[in-house]
């Protein structure tokens, strides 16, 4: 692939907290318009990697580039609106579904129209009747759809999703998986999504990154999982499938 197709490029990225080395020398590219699945055991550094992409934290070594430009060159709020993130356990704010959806625009001193709100809810599979519902009373699956639609309000070209299916029932998991594909196709959004479930990773995604102990141990298309020579990765796959 050539440079133009790269949405995000990591160049020897490391992240340390004090003595603790959380990410170690990560290099690689995320391709435009594709879905990349980030898998790995808990504590591997997956969340940390996503937070680097939208500037919630900065690399302590190396650099990463969004559209060929270093993240450090972006104004933080612009970067965060361009690279949408749904954080692991993102809180639902007190108020209605509409209040939650309006938050990203309120931060820019703009207001959300009812039509926009309805249209974004429709995308995630919630109907108009949800608008005035108390957001804190929704079911787990509905809440997750709301957190996704709230991030979608910023109309980012890159979307980062952190374990958004982990706490859900099988039906909701399936709905969210379909939603990820739909957003990717419909809006041509580049998506990186995290799961610790290998099965899910193999079913959904054009590319896969496997992380362990802060290192990127495998990356490529889905077939790398069956071809891997890495003992740790083989164990991880067997433990999961």
């Amino acid at each position: 692939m050539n440079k133009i197709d790269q949405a995000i490029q990591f160049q020897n990225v490391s992240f340390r907290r004090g003595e603790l080395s959380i990410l170690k020398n990560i290099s690689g590219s995320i391709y435009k318009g594709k879905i990349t699945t980030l898998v790995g055991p808990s504590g591997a550094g997956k969340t940390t990697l996503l937070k680097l992409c939208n500037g919630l934290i900065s690399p302590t070594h190396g650099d990463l580039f969004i559209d060929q430009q270093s993240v450090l060159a972006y104004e933080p709020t612009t970067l965060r609106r361009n690279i949408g993130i749904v954080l692991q356990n993102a809180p639902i704010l007190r108020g209605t579904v509409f209040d939650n959806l309006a938050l990203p625009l309120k931060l820019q001193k703009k207001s959300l129209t009812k039509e926009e709100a309805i249209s974004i809810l429709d995308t995630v599979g919630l109907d108009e009747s949800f608008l005035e519902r108390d957001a804190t009373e929704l079911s787990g699956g509905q809440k997750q759809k709301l957190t996704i639609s709230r991030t979608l309000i910023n109309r980012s070209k890159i979307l980062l999703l952190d374990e958004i299916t982990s706490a859900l029932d099988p039906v909701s998991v399936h709905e969210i998986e379909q939603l990820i594909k739909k957003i990717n196709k419909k809006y041509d959004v580049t998506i990186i999504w995290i799961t610790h479930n290998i099965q899910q990773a193999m079913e959904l995604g054009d590319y896969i990154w496997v992380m362990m102990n802060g290192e990127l141990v495998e990356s490529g298309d889905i077939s790398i999982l069956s071809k891997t020579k890495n003992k740790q990765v083989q164990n991880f796959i067997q433990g999961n499938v």
Partner: protein
Amino acid sequence: MTYTTLSLTLIFVLIPLILSKTLHLSLEKDTIIATIRSIIQLLIVGYVLKFVFDSDSFIYIFFMITLMIVAATLNARQKGRAIKGITWKIALTLIVVEVVTQGILLGLQIVPATAQYIIPISGMLIGNSMVLSILFLNRFTAEVESNKDSIELVLSLGGTPQQAIHTQLKNAIRASLIPTIESQKTIGLVQLPGVMSGQIIGGADPVVAVQFQILIIFALLTTASISSILIGMLSYPTLFNERMQFIKNATHK
């Protein structure tokens, strides 16, 4: 009151000592230490104040107020040790409170510009400001600790640090101000406030005493709101860095 009659008040110390001894509360040592400390500290203050009042020199007044601000700062900063530069932030808050309130009181000639007025009023206002700073810092660090996810959410959606911390800042300011406002609603009904009691015992006309008390409680409203808001505005930026990133462990050491 003579020192002989004053020494009779030691009966009030004996009673808790005897109670503590008989009921094995083991509070005797602390009670004795507290008694000795209060005698020494208050006597020193009394003689220092007498000296300052007699000299009526602005140098001494200035020195006394500086001393109060230093003592109050050292006391309040314990609660905000994790916040960078908290010492000078509290000191600045107390200085602003003192300058604004005395500026109004003396500038509009509400009270005479003598040590007899300036020092006790400053003491009350600085003391209140110190308590407010402690209340604010306690509440603010607790609010931030328990709402890290919401703060990060706002940042992640493209909000500024100020927008991200807005709710926590507002809650902490409100929570620290409420006791001051609430206590004024019942003032005089249960307990006569200190200033009034003191003046009445000292022989002042109760109505004059009330007038002074009103002056003090109004001034306390100003000191309370300036203190919480100023210390809040000075503190919250230290929770973020120049890349608008939330420094997670900024509120605990």
